[in-house]
């Protein structure tokens, strides 16, 4: 095949993709409720990988694993991270599902295979064009971030007791607190103003 023909085919392919993408965007909009395509996920992961400096990648966690460090990290994660990632790291939360891209399931290999240094760098510096903010630079100590790295490693083995403990640390607004009080009152035996359908909440 002649070189000119190959170039022409590539141009036609690119134009075709552009038209398909354009029509799709015009038709569906750019809603954050959509699920990123496999191509976008692949591109985003590769770009994220390139964004982490090589020296940061090779850093080792200076925190010795201990029950105390994990307890601190659980409380920190429940308070700062669980709104998007969930206490179990699965990302099945109102905010997590509403983000584009969705937060990854931290228990799975795509996260667990990252080095300690990569996880630390992401916590400290965030990830551009995603919902992941930078928690370094004055928002908290690096020791806290390293403890979070320990906790992320522990996530696949998180116990039910630990999840229940973390629920108490989750930030709650006035509406959530009122809802919790109503539920506790109900469990104590008080009557409830039950709606015809299961109540909606977040």
């Amino acid at each position, binding site marked *: 095949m002649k070189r000119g023909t190959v170039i022409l085919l590539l141009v036609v392919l690119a134009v075709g993709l552009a038209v398909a*993408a*354009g029509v799709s965007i015009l038709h569906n909009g750019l809603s954050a409720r959509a*699920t990123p395509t496999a191509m976008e996920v692949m591109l985003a992961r590769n770009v994220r990988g390139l964004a982490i400096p090589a020296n940061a990648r090779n850093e080792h966690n200076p925190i010795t694993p201990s029950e105390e460090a994990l307890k601190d990290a659980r409380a920190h994660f429940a308070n700062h991270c669980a709104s998007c990632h969930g206490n179990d790291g699965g990302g099945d939360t109102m905010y997590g599902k509403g983000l584009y891209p969705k937060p990854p399931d931290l228990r799975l290999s795509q996260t667990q295979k990252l080095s300690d240094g990569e996880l630390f760098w992401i916590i400290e510096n965030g990830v551009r064009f995603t919902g992941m903010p930078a928690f370094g630079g004055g928002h908290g100590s690096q020791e806290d971030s390293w403890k979070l790295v320990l906790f992320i490693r522990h996530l696949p083995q998180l116990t039910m007791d630990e999840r229940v403990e973390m629920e108490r640390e989750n930030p709650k607004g006035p509406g959530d607190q009122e809802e919790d009080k109503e539920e506790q009152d109900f469990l104590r035996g008080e009557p409830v103003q*039950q709606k015809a359908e*299961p109540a909606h909440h977040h």
Partner: protein
Amino acid sequence: MCVAGINGLPGPIICADGEHFMKRQIVSLLALVALMASVGFAHGDKKHVLGTLEKINADSVVVKQADGKSVEVKLVSGTMYVTRDGKAAKLSDLAVGDRVVIHATPNPDSSLSADEIKFSVAGAANAPTASKPN
């Protein structure tokens, strides 16, 4: 129809109709060539069910609500069981007649999957607890 500039002076292209909007859309489209929109949608809404346990199955529970209607909620591997005073429990700790508060995720087929089941043992509902309400 579009006019470049104002009174003959250089300036932005201003259109009397929707052409300006269309141009912005086209530019945006070209910049977003790599993006392919998807049709999958997430469902972030949760439901909560309050009532008395009417039936306990291996993979679901049936809750009778205050209005008399019964709701079936599926049990999944991630379902958390929590006592009224905030301790982790398990499915076998539940009994028919227990008061329950279930936080559940709606499924595409309109069924519900339990994220968390808080319960108080039947007959012990009015007993004081050591922990304060969250």
